[in-house]
């Protein structure tokens, strides 16, 4: 029994719809359920699930596609869709004095004090500009989590921010910590002297986690977006973030995390940093540069702390499978890049290293740190592929992330190690993260994975396994 309908004028965000789909699919007698906006990707997904979608559906409509064992089950599933959608939409409060919820960022910011207010924009990339512009015009610290925002819009926003005393964090800014409050995917860190300017979300998360593990706290972590230090954007947000941190009494030491910037931008940022009267360290991510773990060690030393090597636990399979190669499947872009650099140094350039958080793979669906199912499907395929000799993974904890990512991975890891395929995993997180760092590590090691709190060390172990086999 199948049911396919397209609802016009209905919009619910993709994360909520994923939850609705899951709730319906979990019913007994329901074979498949997809409740999703009609993006190209979701339409393909529906076709892949065997649903026939009416021709001519495009853009912002809602697709409800259900397959069930019987008419009764189908009816139950349809009721469940309605119930789940109703539960997801908070009804507007009306009546005396209670205003309905604001419909634009401008309306929401109208009565707020710009000094204590932060805006967090995560609307689809083609629309995020106008929402962010409202916040920038209001002079707010504006975080743009959305990706796929055109670079010329980024430049416009950052130029405008210079006029309104705003700071644009992003676009594609995954993490920030402002005055102890985590925004986006943020780890729970203790307060301390280190201020971070980050052009890399997962890079910042990893650095913060390593610092927290060495008992060095964070004052603020300001994301600036991966393109900020390109010549097109010219480091506008980095320069502004440096000024804000230099003026901040809690910050004693500043770290800038970025891929190697465009040369003229690098010079401008270094010159500006030198004029601030605060110590500024650079953690550049690239071949020939220190890895994040080494950067963390340097920051700890500069902050007067004591560095100890991040913890790790051995895996159940100590030999690479057959003569297979290294396969890296990541949720963090910087985790992938760092592992890729380390692997390339020893094993050469043709390593398969996939970032499931890449723009191409997140269009129209939630980030893999929220929903890791796409990566799990890939792991299942790698288990059956004799060309795969060792799996290298990352797990990123923190606010906003999957509440229990190890649980989503554990079955696949167990099957892999049972099939003789070694799995090496880095876990990025702090002891205060809601997921419980040590429990996450334990779940993965019990399933047979080797676990490292340093991503670079995880990559090195995977490389050693491959090297051992070829030697």
């Amino acid at each position, binding site marked *: 029994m199948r049911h396919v309908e397209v609802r016009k004028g209905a*919009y619910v*965000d993709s*994360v*909520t719809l994923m939850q609705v789909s899951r709730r319906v699919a979990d019913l007994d007698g329901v074979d498949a359920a997809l409740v999703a906006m009609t993006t190209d990707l979701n339409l393909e997904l529906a076709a892949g699930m065997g649903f026939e979608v009416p021709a001519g559906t495009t853009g912002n409509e809602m697709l409800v596609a259900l397959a069930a064992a019987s008419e009764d089950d189908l009816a139950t599933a349809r009721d469940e869709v309605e119930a789940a959608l109703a539960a997801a939409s908070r009804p507007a409060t*009306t*009546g005396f004095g209670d*205003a*309905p*919820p*604001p*419909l*634009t*960022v401008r*309306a*929401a*910011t*109208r009565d*707020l*004090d710009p*000094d*204590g*207010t*932060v*805006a*967090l*924009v*995560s*609307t*689809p990339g*083609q*629309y*995020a*500009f*106008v*929402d962010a*512009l409202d*916040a920038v015009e209001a*002079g*707010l*610290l504006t975080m743009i*989590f*959305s990706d796929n925002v055109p670079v010329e*819009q980024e430049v*416009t926003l950052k130029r405008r921010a210079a006029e309104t*005393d*705003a*700071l644009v964090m992003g676009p594609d800014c995954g993490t920030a910590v*402002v*005055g*102890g*409050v*985590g*925004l986006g995917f*943020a780890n729970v860190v203790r307060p301390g002297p280190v201020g971070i300017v980050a052009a890399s979300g997962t890079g910042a998360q990893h650095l913060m986690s390593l610092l927290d593990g060495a008992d060095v706290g964070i004052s*603020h972590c300001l994301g600036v977006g991966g393109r900020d230090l390109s010549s097109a954007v010219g480091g506008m947000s980095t320069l502004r973030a440096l000024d*804000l941190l230099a*003026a*901040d009494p809690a910050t004693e030491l500043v770290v800038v995390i970025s891929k190697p910037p465009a040369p003229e931008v690098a010079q401008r940022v270094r010159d500006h940093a030198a004029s601030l009267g605060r110590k500024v360290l650079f953690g550049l991510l690239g071949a020939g540069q220190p890895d994040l773990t080494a950067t963390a060690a340097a920051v700890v030393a500069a902050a007067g702390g004591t560095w100890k090597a991040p913890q790790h636990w051995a895996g159940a399979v100590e030999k690479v499978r057959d003569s297979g190669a290294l396969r890296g499947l990541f949720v963090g872009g910087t985790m992938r890049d760092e592992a890729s650099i380390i692997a390339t140094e020893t094993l050469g350039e043709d390593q398969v290293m996939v970032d499931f958080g890449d723009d191409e793979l997140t269009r129209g669906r939630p980030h893999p740190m929220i929903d890791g199912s796409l990566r799990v499907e890939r792991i299942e395929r790698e288990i059956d592929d004799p060309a795969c000799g060792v799996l290298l993974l990352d797990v990123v904890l923190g*606010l906003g992330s999957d509440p229990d990512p190890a649980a989503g991975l554990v079955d696949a890891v167990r099957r892999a190690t049972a099939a003789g395929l070694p799995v090496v995993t880095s876990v990025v997180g702090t002891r205060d993260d*809601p997921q419980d760092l040590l429990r996450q590590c334990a779940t993965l090691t019990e399933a047979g994975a080797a676990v490292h709190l340093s991503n670079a060390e995880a990559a090195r172990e995977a490389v050693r396994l491959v090297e051992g086999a070829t030697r």
Partner: protein
Amino acid sequence: MTQLTTPTAVVTAGAELLADAVAAQAVATHRVAWQPPAGDAAALAAVMADRRRRDANERALARMLAAEATLVDVRPASEALGLEPGQFLHAGPPVDWERASGPLRGALIGAMLLEGLADSPEAAEAALASGDGVSWEPCHHRGAVGPMAGVVTPSMWVFELRDAVHGNTSWCSLNEGLGKVLRYGAYGPEVIDRLRWMGDVLGPLLQKAVRAGGPIDVRAIVAQMIQMGDEGHNRNRAGTLMFLREVLPAMIDSGAPTGEVAEAVRFVSANDHFFLNLGMPACKLQTRAAADLPGSSVVTVMARNGTDFGIQVSGTGDQWFTAPANTPEGLYLGSYGPEDANPDIGDSAITETAGIGGMSMATAPAIVRFVGGSVPDALATTQRMYDITVGENPAFAIPILEFRGAPTGIDVTSVVRSGVLPQINTGMAGRVAGTGQVGAGLVTPPMACFTQALDALAAAV
């Protein structure tokens, strides 16, 4: 923002999960109920990025709030507007006979009869269809406004209102009352007789009163009526009585026969909508003050001719953006039903353009049932309208919302982004020429007017 502090509030737009993660840290979240914009994303981005927009819209609002509206005279349209025999004005954007709706056709037929240009409805219709010696254009093209069909003929008397601050003048005919009236498309003998009496007796009497008593501050009456349960479009009861209070002494002193004075007073006080035709030109003066500001996305005209809904926007001057008018939903008189109602008609949406009428529905709980709503709906509607306006008008304060000012300066970008259309309260005309009023209700403009305006603003960046 000048320094980094622990946030006291986080405004979120997009994934609820990220907002939940902030709320879990005991920080107040202000969540935008976001939805995809109704218009083209590139046009929206271009208009939003236009450096002139913010200042131009602030100026538009400031000019609206500063506009005055003083009744300075009452005189025939031939004098006031220079209408020649055979020239008529009508409501809404331009429309030809072919596409004209029943009520507009009925009103034009009545206009021919009133002006003595035809001796039967059939002859009038034939002349109008052939365009023989007659022409008509929108009231707005002359700075005037007309309720419902909005037909103004040379012999009709009009109120003349002045905004001395911006040097603008606006005009509107005298209100005929409810039921079988010309503005609802009726043209029977009683309609024509009433119009003749208004031209012969009522108009001259009001002229004497205004000239003798001195200019009347109409904006001040609007401000008071908003605090007395009138929203200024479908309820004008307090406004009508306050106006009568202003002119009554001078009418009595005018030396006109007491029978005529009594008849005029009886007519005005029996027509709760008499003040609508003073509120409308006052609103026109307010929105006209905001017109022609390059880069401004503020709506300056919303008007309907019974076929099309048209809007004008400050940054694009007198260009009309039109789309087929919606049909109001509401309650019907007697045995009339939805099939009898004509699509939305009249310049009276100028009241909403200026922030009153449906925009300020919260202030008129007495009539929410009449237009098919409830009191909570009315409160929610007005609060919703603040999402699509540039600001508020403190002069028009709404008591039940803690004297918050009327939502003022409808912004095309906000309408397109939020998907929320301005709320209009309106009367409903019968679809068939000659019927008259069939009900009253609520209606919104078509979104296409706003997306077209957005595209034109983008092209003008």
